[in-house]
């Protein structure tokens, strides 16, 4: 069994081309990381220390999406976009830009302010380890976007979920500093019906 299994899975490999490409991407990520570190050092001068720690942690864990459907581009409220389709060779692809280009909230004096829609609403009381603030918008194409913000001021996270014009759940992305989905996110998914049933 062992030798057969080993020989079989020896064939499961990254192609050398893909491996080189990923290596190159990692290499470029080092440069980006250096820039981010420099930027965060500058931010730390003008922002409260707590806010800086949150920003640093957020950058460390960005979990992304699983949108898979027809050829189209969905512009996310957070600034990123999802593009899916089929290339010239008939291979399906999913191109994902970062969901949130900028933080949808600001933390000032330990208070959480929602700034995605420029409302600057104080949402501190909505955000705990188990509860979340919900913002909703219907796009011109009829797609429903829901942004959820949860967690405590020193451990915030956010997510965006999308439904099509028929009300079918398309998918979502989340930015959190925890390895596993936090409780508030699980509650948001459950309440919104934004759940893909695992195998």
């Amino acid at each position, binding site marked *: *069994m*062992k030798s*057969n*299994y*080993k*020989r*079989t*899975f020896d*064939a*499961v*490999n*990254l192609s050398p081309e*893909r*491996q080189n490409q*990923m*290596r190159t*991407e*990692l*290499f470029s*990520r*080092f440069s980006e*990381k*250096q820039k*981010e*570190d420099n930027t965060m*050092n500058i931010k730390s001068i003008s922002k409260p220390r707590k806010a800086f720690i949150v920003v*640093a942690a957020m*950058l*460390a*864990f960005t*979990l*992304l*999406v*699983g949108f*898979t*459907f027809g050829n189209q581009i969905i512009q996310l409220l957070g600034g990123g976009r999802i593009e899916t389709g089929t290339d010239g060779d008939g291979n399906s692809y*999913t191109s994902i830009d970062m969901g949130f280009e900028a933080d949808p909230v600001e933390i000032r004096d330990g208070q959480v302010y929602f700034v995605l829609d420029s409302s600057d609403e104080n949402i501190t009381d909505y955000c705990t380890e188990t509860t979340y603030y919900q913002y909703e918008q219907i796009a011109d194409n009829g797609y429903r976007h829901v942004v959820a913000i949860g967690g405590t001021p020193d451990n915030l996270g956010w997510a965006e*979920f999308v439904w099509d014009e028929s009300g079918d759940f398309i*998918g*979502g*992305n*989340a930015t959190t500093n925890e*390895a*596993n*989905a936090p409780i508030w996110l699980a509650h948001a*998914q459950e309440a919104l019906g*934004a*759940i*893909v049933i*695992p*195998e």
Partner: protein
Amino acid sequence: MNKSEKGGVNRVQEVEILELFDQYSNMVYRIAYSYLRQSQDAEDTVQAVFLKLIDGSAHPEQGKERAFLTRVTINHCKNVLHSVWKRRVEPLDSDIVFEQKEDRELFNAVIALPAKYRIVVHLHYYEGYTFSEISGFLKISSSAVSMRIHRAKKLLKDILREDSNEIQLQADI
């Protein structure tokens, strides 16, 4: 590998991480593939695992890099399997080239197993981890690992026997 004071990586760590990538990227890929059954998800996992090292959110102890990367890979795969951002459609890849026909049959049989069996089979039979080590990775008891291996082998035999019967049936026709 030590974390730099700024929380990111310095030049020495950069070289170390690239060396780890060269040495272990295929191991991470195979573990992720055996768990997630899709090459794109497995590639995403490779990127995610090594980005954690770059971002400074994960730090392997010297000499324990392999076990560390295995654990981070498994945790990432678990999140993918049980999260909202899991891909909704899971076509199986068929472009892997195998040395022998039997390898393809064994591959198909393994991939047909439930995820909880696939991962223990792979960690034990390919990576050579002991039941005790696997129990640590999966946070289940050693006896549960043993039980899963036993059941997985039985399922594999059943699947391979069915395939064999089908092939025989087609030959008879």
